């Protein structure tokens, strides 16, 4: 196990290094600069600005400087919003995004799993059709439509929750609802398919012929096996949760991390793009790593060797 972890750690470092390098050069290949230049900006001012931001140096030198700072753990400060450091932005925005994201996943996973399981057990019954329709709706209605819709009714028309902002628990309800919606559909559909698949397996017949009760079969044999694909999907899902949801954050004006990435790209905010990319990649890699281990716990057949 220790050897496996060490191996994964090294490959993780290589991945991050590659991500950082590729992002750095790609980002500089896109036209634009972190400060605003208009048609009226004279050459002398442009020149001074490039020097001030260190962008007059050869690209490779800029790259070396960035990497050197990175090794010292210095992600730098946003080039556009000069009082906002990369680390500060992440520590301020990520918990907010995580709350909404995990809230959405948790609710989605719970409701979705129950619906999916019932749908599979009552195959071709009412709940089944309900889940199928729900899944289609969940996948086909984009977040910005559903988000705006619940905002319109729950906040503007009925005034049950605030329209936007982030000043207390009631501000989290609608964003979480919006985030949960897609997840419910996603998990319901996934568990239904997975359960139906499991139900046809030989070991279920074995269990039945052994004389086990329906409840026990479902609990011990069906659910456990059906949850496997769900666990696989949890890894990237968690990474996605931590990196925020731009659309939901924008609609409900939630100060999460999802907006930071998009705005930093729009602003050519080099330090912010680099910092967020590296941190996001790190989270992704770690999440996949954890999933690999959890996978083993759920399914002893693929327990990691070594």
């Amino acid at each position, binding site marked *: 196990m220790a050897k496996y972890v060490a191996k994964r750690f090294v490959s993780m470092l290589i991945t991050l290094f590659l991500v950082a390098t590729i992002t750095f050069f790609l980002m500089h290949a896109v036209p634009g600069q972190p400060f605003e230049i208009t*048609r009226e900006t*004279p050459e002398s001012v442009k020149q001074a600005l490039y020097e*001030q*931001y260190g962008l007059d140096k050869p690209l490779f030198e800029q790259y070396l400087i960035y990497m050197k700072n990175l090794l010292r753990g210095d992600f730098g400060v946003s080039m556009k919003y000069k009082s906002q450091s990369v680390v500060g932005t992440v520590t*301020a925005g990520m918990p907010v995004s995580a709350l909404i994201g995990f809230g959405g996943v948790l609710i989605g996973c719970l409701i979705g799993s129950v619906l999916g399981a019932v749908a599979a057990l009552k195959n071709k019954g009412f709940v089944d059709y309900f889940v199928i329709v729900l899944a289609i709706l969940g996948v086909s209605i984009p977040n910005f439509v559903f988000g705006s819709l619940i905002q319109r009714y729950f906040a*503007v028309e009925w*005034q049950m929750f605030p329209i936007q902002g*982030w000043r207390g628990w009631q501000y989290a309800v609608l964003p979480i609802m919006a985030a949960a919606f897609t997840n419910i559909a996603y998990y319901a559909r996934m568990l239904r398919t997975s359960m139906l698949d499991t139900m046809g397996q030989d070991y279920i017949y074995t269990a039945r012929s052994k004389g086990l009760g329906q409840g026990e079969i479902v609990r011990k044999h069906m659910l456990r096996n059906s949850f496997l694909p769900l666990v696989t999907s949890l890894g990237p899902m968690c990474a996605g949760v931590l990196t925020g949801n731009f659309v939901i954050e924008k*609609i409900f004006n939630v100060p999460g991390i999802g*907006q930071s990435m998009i705005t930093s790209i729009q602003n050519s905010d080099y330090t912010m793009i680099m910092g967020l990319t590296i941190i996001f990649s790190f989270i992704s890699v770690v999440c996949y790593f954890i999933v690999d281990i959890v996978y083993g716990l759920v399914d002893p057949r693929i327990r990691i060797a070594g």
Partner: protein
Amino acid sequence: MKKQRARWISLILVLAMLVSLAACGGKPADGTTKAAEGGEGTQAPAGPAGGETQGAGASAAEQVFKFFLGNEPATVDPWVNNSGEAGVLVAALHEPMLRKTNDGQGWEPALMTDYQHNDDYTVHTLTLREGAKWADGTDITMDDVVGSFLRVLNPELGSAIAYKYFVIAGAEAYYLGEADESQLGIKAVDGQTLEITTAEPCDYFVDYLTAASFAPVSQAAAAQYGDTYGTDADKLVASGPFKMTEWVHSNSIVLEKNENYWDAANVTLEKIEITITSDSNTLQGMYQNDELSILKVSDELLAQYANENIVDNEQLRLTFIEFNPNTNEYLANIKIREALSIAFNRRAFAEQVMHNGDLAAYGLVPVGVEGLNGGDFREQAGNIVTDASDASEIERANQLLEEGLKEIGKTKEEMAEGFSIQCLESGKTQAQAIQGMWKTNLGLEMPVSVLDFNVILPMLTEGTFDCVIGGGQDSDYRDPQGFMQFIYDEGKWDNAEFKGLVEKAHTQVGDERIQTWMDIERMVLENFIYIPQVYATNHFAIKSNVQGLAIFNYGYQFDFKYVTITE
């Protein structure tokens, strides 16, 4: 029993689907009916259930103004900020030297109590208010004023608007390190008297003095925070009617009354709550529920807000089509350029795109800029270009096109393949409308290509574009120069007569100068490189309990100083 339940649930499902479908397609229709229902009573559409979200309700006279920004301001440092939107905050927090009067026409004393200039408008003398204080209670001194200029002209500050101060004598040389402080046109004659010398006669200099960008900052704070001054609520010291008490980045800002403001007695507003969001559905919902005092209404939504108190704000801003005669063989021909200009029906375009035909632009300088004898420049200069809104002109356009094509030995088909119409995503509808007009009137269909701003900008400055639609020019000061100087500065038009005229204008003052700019405008327009499209306008829905809000058409857009909330 079971069947019945199933039927119920399926009914709910069908309803859910219908609702979501309605959300996809029917938004505008939904809104229109709402405004109609509201009728006279739209001011209080919230109904009795109001209490939950925002505790306002009963005490309507609570002095809180609820405002919005579309984007997170990078800074509220007057000397660094280059966002027009954030300029509003800058002016609320930092007292300008002079303040625009609420009608936007004149000025009133602010940080400076008096403004005098010499006859040729090169030396401008200002008197600093005695006893004016920063929000932290310290005095605003002449050192703060002079220091603010020295700070922005130091390249280390990294201000992208440093060039705007080059209007001051010696400023550019100082910025480049080629001159010292003694050669700079900023002098403290004594503790209360400031003398600014401009590089050339400048009879519109008062518009600089009322600008947010000329509001001094505390030198103690500037030294402490460096280039991060104004980037956080605790990294600035206010001098204006309001101070900043909270800034949740990319989310919200709170301004509160500044008790140390010199004119605090005349400020009734206690608080300004600012929401930072660009989501128009969110903003509309907030306005409906009285969580916003003002809403920007786009041209498309204007009908929906017909029953609201709408203020039209004609901006000093022009949009134009720009042709490149230097690299494109078709556009190098002046007859072809003129044909294209005529075939573009501005009136129809303004009606189609902006729902207001009167905004069609037949000159470069918008209405509202001073002309000869204090009149209006546009009225005096009149409509300079003609177009297809006069049907007989279409024939002339076709004739010009034919002649032009003959001169260069090309056909219409070749021309349609010869270049594309370039625009930003935001200008796509405009470009398509113009594309359609050229097709109907001239039988030419050029393709439209949408480009990113960062791609189009270097194409424009380096002259590698063909035909850009939707480019714009606005001016920080109400003077014809602001709408034409950029043509000279970019230097793409190498014409001795034009250059000579611009240089002449810079040595003149008063009506002489205005007359020269009128000549320049005619000359530029008759060359058909800059084809005026429309003058820009904004619409704002404002709650009826808001009094005294000033809305300006140049520089910073709103002044909150005299706002009161009634009822």
